[in-house]
């Protein structure tokens, strides 16, 4: 079985799809089993018909059969080598069909000639030598070639069908793999997002604090490194305990508080039982970042950011409220933060999770996520 080495775009990993598809068997072994079954069936069918037509007792019949099956196995194996080395299966479909036809014809002729001469050499012809009804050699060869063509044609049909089916199955697997890869990459790009504006503004504030308040500057560096570390680590994880995510959010809001000073008030309402619930990393963080970016930072007087986590019905409910107005924007228009949140929960939970963002009072916007409670 000709094998194409499959490589990803980067050429780093190579997946062996055949091992998934065929199981633990190697391709060579698989091929020989097919050969044995095929020619075994051929032998049995011949014996069956010999039984039906009552020449089961004839010794010559078995020799003929033995010669024919041996020739068949040898030459079909040779034929396979030709097919593989000529790369017939790689060619366009109409070329493949044409090649198969001619290869079959040539090998049928070889089998026909070999069989005829072997039969004559061993005196195995179905019609006795020297009998009056002796038939000219070329007619024998032609008849044998004709039958061989039929058998080899069936052999090739099976061979071709097998490869055709396994190829399409491989392609299905490829497609599935690719879809999974795309999904994984999507999740990665969404997760890795941390606003560079925030990082540089924080660094600037920290530099100012070094003289003014060295203690606060030190804490700020710890907070910033926690956030950076977590944004790098999350690439490897699909879910983290909520407590971990909350700590990042707390660090983040502490840093924003350092920048906005009395323009930002932060409030937490956390049900302690939710702390161990698994959540997508950096999701709450994105919502809080959004609340700052679209809410607080746009207001001269600043406002409040409230983070709420509790259980509602069968869901783990995460809420971020912020002072501000939605400006008539719908969910699609709210930019990267919102669309990435929607995409992420869709990818992770399908339609088992919900997200919405709305104006709950003239001065307050609420973003809410419901994710299924883990048992």
């Amino acid at each position: 079985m000709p094998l194409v080495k499959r490589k990803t775009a980067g050429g780093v990993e190579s997946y062996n799809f055949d091992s998934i598809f065929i199981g633990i068997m190697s391709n060579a072994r698989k091929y020989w089993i097919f050969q044995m079954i095929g020619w075994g069936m051929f032998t049995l069918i011949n014996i069956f018909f010999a039984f039906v037509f009552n020449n089961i007792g004839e010794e010559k019949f078995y020799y003929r059969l033995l010669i024919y099956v041996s020739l068949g196995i040898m030459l079909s194996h040779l034929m396979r080598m030709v097919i593989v080395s000529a790369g017939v299966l790689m060619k366009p479909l109409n070329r493949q069909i044409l090649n198969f036809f001619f290869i079959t014809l040539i090998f049928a002729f070889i089998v026909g000639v070999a069989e005829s001469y072997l039969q004559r050499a061993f005196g195995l012809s179905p019609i006795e030598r020297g009998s009056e009804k002796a038939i000219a050699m070329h007619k024998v060869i032609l008849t044998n070639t004709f039958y061989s063509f039929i058998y080899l044609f069936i052999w090739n049909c099976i061979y071709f069908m097998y490869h055709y089916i396994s190829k399409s199955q491989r392609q299905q697997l490829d497609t599935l793999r690719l879809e999974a890869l795309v999904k994984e990459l999507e999740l990665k790009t969404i997760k890795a997002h941390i606003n560079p504006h925030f990082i540089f503004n924080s660094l600037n504030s920290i530099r100012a604090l070094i003289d003014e308040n060295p203690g606060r500057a030190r804490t700020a560096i710890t907070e910033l490194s926690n956030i950076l570390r977590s944004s790098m680590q999350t690439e490897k994880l699909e879910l983290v305990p909520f407590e971990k995510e909350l700590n990042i959010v707390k660090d983040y809001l502490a840093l924003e508080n350092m920048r906005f000073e009395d323009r930002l008030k932060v409030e937490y309402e956390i049900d302690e039982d939710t702390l161990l619930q698994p959540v997508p990393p950096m999701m709450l963080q994105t919502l809080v970042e959004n609340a700052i970016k679209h809410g607080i930072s746009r207001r001269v007087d600043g406002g409040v950011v409230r983070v709420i986590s509790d259980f509602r019905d069968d869901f783990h409910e995460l809420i971020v409220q912020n002072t501000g107005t939605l400006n008539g924007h719908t969910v699609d228009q709210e930019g990267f933060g919102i669309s990435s949140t929607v995409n992420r929960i869709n990818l992770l939970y399908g339609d088992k999770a919900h997200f919405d963002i709305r104006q709950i009072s003239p001065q307050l916007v609420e973003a809410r996520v419901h994710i299924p409670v883990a048992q």
Partner: protein
Amino acid sequence: MHMKAIIIDDERLARSELRKLLQEFPEIEVIDEATNAEEGLQKIDSLQPDLVFLDIQMPGKTGFDLLSELDRAPHVIFTTAYDEYALKAFEVNALDYLLKPVEPKRLADAIQKLHQVEIKEGLPIGENYNRSLLSEHDQVFVKDGEKCWFVKLSEIRLFESVGNYAKVFFGPNKPLILKSLNALEERLDEKVFFRANRKHIVNLRLIDKIEPYFNGGLLIELKGGEKIEVSRRQTVKFKEMMSL
């Protein structure tokens, strides 16, 4: 050289950090600070600084909005943390900007550049604000969608009235500014900028050709190829000015 500067930034720590960095430059005196665009506008009007350090992302209005509202743009050095939108605008027009946290070397370069502008124009920066009329050497800030420019008035060949807006023609660009033609006429030096008709003000220094037109009017062709009709009444005035 002595320059009066204002820092406009919504973050106290960012302002105090910039002040600290500016201590290295005795020629720059920080006379005040503002925490948002509205406050900045008032302080620029009342204090008439020579130089403004301006943050772009601020609550309410952005730094760009602030500049568009000024008749005459002071020398501006933008400060921003990281803002793709702003950086794009800068790349197109090579405005001067500093990235926060500010590198002392970059700050020194930016200030050095101001000195060079001063020498090149032979205009002491400190005198820019004592006149109510805009001179050719004054610059205006123009923002049109994602692009923005500082334009010297001497480079503008034509103002065209479009409703409440005016279309400003310079180089290959013709962005809109939110100013009426009448308001512009009041502020512009009439020796250079001439009201050709109800809809157009032309820069007399950038005229290419003048031809007679119907009814004793004139047709002016500007260096950019625009053809402007001078009304009959204004033709009399135009001829008077030209004969001097």
